[in-house]
């Protein structure tokens, strides 16, 4: 419980603001850059989270990438041009 209160002050603000329905995405973006510059601790946490998230998404996308030519999906970023040309 204490960890929830004291550990998330900065991250909670960024995560809540980056919900697309609130239309505050640019505020969250700016706030994240300010936090990244001011607080090195936030940097380390964000870095570890990003590495984990990227690796997880890569693993999740692996079986979907061969189907990019037939069915466009969020996994084939940069590979959709082939589909659009066809």
């Amino acid at each position: 419980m204490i960890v929830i209160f004291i550990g998330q002050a900065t991250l909670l603000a960024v995560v809540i603001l980056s919900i697309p329905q609130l239309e505050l995405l640019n505020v969250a973006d700016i706030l994240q850059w300010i936090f990244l510059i001011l607080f090195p601790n936030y940097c380390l946490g964000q870095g570890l989270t990003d590495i984990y998230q990227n690796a997880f998404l890569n693993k999740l996308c692996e079986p979907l990438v061969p189907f990019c030519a037939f069915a466009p999906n969020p996994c084939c970023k940069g590979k959709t041009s082939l589909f659009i040309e066809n």
Partner: protein
Amino acid sequence: MASSIVFGFGFLMAAFAVFLIKERISKAKHLQFLSGANGINFWLSAFIWDLVYYIIATVLIFLVWIIFYHTAAVKDDLEVYLTGSRLGYTILLYIFYGFSHIPMTYVISYVFQIPASGFAWITIINIITSNKI
């Protein structure tokens, strides 16, 4: 994972400020500068000594991670940080973190007058501004 790592580093980084505050308040730093010590020499020696401590702590963290990885306790989580080219990213992240947070602690240490309360306050600041998965 990230929350516990950052929580621990909050204490480690705050501990670096204790000696600096003590040295400033007891005028030991003033005495060193009067005796002809250069500003660059003073801060660089403090920084390198703190960096040695930081590197020891980081090596111990990697040691614990590798032990947990090979005993398959949290293998799925740790293979993200320890396998393939991502090990390089993780090491680079820790190196940059050390180079950024130690000088930040030096800057913040100027605010405080008592070493113990400075340690406590910097720890609180570090924990509040930290991150969590």
